[in-house]
């Protein structure tokens, strides 16, 4: 082997050695939550597909379990317990405290969410760990914030309007956009997911899409994933 090839091999070794760190649980994470979390990510790691959309390729690569696992494990190095501000949160990231740590609440197991909905939250939060992207902060939802039928977007259960709240995204690459792109790709292209998982992925992705508010971002996602709907 000549000097050039040897140094290239060393560079590759160093790069590959610096990736692939597994996340660590704090000791106070209850076993039930740990089990659920590990099982959910184990499911994600099995996902297979022959196709993926262009936006998915940009964010995750192809629709494949190892790609999702790599995405997660290169962003989240620790998992702990936190109230996440109280209320109904299932998980959160607190960037000013620890940008690469994910916090779970008791709601992760207490609430009866479909499995793909839990994963949507986990991958949504994983996006918030990215310091190089300023943790992908949310945009304020517009005022007024109306749906396609001109009705005010408001909570199904609080009745409170989302207008003006920091609960939207202007980019398809943010937490709402990236997690809905992931789920929509699973719905459309996963070849070994159950029919229920695929249905659920579509239901939750379509709903998350409403939080993307920039016209160009909406158009990009529609062209990427909803080709028959403009």
């Amino acid at each position, binding site marked *: 082997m000549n*000097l050039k090839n040897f140094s290239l091999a060393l560079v590759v070794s160093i790069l590959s050695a610096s990736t692939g760190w597994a996340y660590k649980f704090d000791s106070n994470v209850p076993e039930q939550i740990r089990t659920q979390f590990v099982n959910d990510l184990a499911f994600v790691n099995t996902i297979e597909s022959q196709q993926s959309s262009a936006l998915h390729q940009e964010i995750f690569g192809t629709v494949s379990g190892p790609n999702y696992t790599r995405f997660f494990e290169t962003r989240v190095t620790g998992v702990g317990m936190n109230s996440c501000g109280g209320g109904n949160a299932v998980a959160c990231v607190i960037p000013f405290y620890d940008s690469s740590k994910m916090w779970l609440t008791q709601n992760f197991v207490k609430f009866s969410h479909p499995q793909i909905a839990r994963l949507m939250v986990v991958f949504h939060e994983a996006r918030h760990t990215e310091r190089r992207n300023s943790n992908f902060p949310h945009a304020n939802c517009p005022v007024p914030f109306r749906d396609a039928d001109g009705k005010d977007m408001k909570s199904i259960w609080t009745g409170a309007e989302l207008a003006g709240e920091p609960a939207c995204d202007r980019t398809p690459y943010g937490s709402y956009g990236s997690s809905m792109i992931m789920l929509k790709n699973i719905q459309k292209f996963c070849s070994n997911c159950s029919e229920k998982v695929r249905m659920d992925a579509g239901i939750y992705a379509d709903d998350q899409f409403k939080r993307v508010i920039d016209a160009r971002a909406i158009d990009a996602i529609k062209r990427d994933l909803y080709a028959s709907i403009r």
Partner: protein
Amino acid sequence: MNLKKAAAGALVISAAAAFFFLSRSPSRDSVPEISSAPNSPEIQIAENVMPAVSPSTAPPLNGDAKSKAALLDQILASRNDNDPRLDRELKILDDATKDLFREKYNSLAPEKRNERGTIVFLIGRNLTGERDFSFFCDVLREAPCFSLSDCRGNSGSVTKEDYHHESGEDVTLAYPQYVALSMLGKFLQSSASGGRSGLSETAVKTLRCGQDSRVEAVLEKTNALLKGISR
């Protein structure tokens, strides 16, 4: 010569760094470790955690309704929505099984949104008679679930953080209804393309039950589906 020595030195340092990182990096296949909080004993997970029953080793079912109900209970308890038996042993349901599943649905606490929605999904793949559509109508007309902690509860515990996440929670609160609408939509699509046309009128009547929902999102989805049918 000096350049070659410098390059060789850099290579030695790089090699040392590579060996250092390689020896420290955990295997991707390793089980996640638990780090101890201050003053707490370290805890190690001894083995990978897996669902109690592996789908590939479970005994085959003889098609009995009670066996299928027991299987459903097992899958729901595992919280693994990707269990392949959902699309195998529980794909085709006879009337006796559907009766048992409807009983199960009604016995579940309303807060069990995923469990209820799973039953709606399974029956929704087997819409063959009046009892099935009547059940779907009841699901669509159900009272709103206001909280995943207690459907009868109020939203008093809502915080600003909830706005951030609540799109997913909104869906889960109405999940059985969303599933019912999704399955009715698929049924009508397959009727339009030539299958099961005899029940399509019943399916449309059932869909209209969504217009009685007090959940605005359910009402909107119902109207969108009805509009799509009338085109």
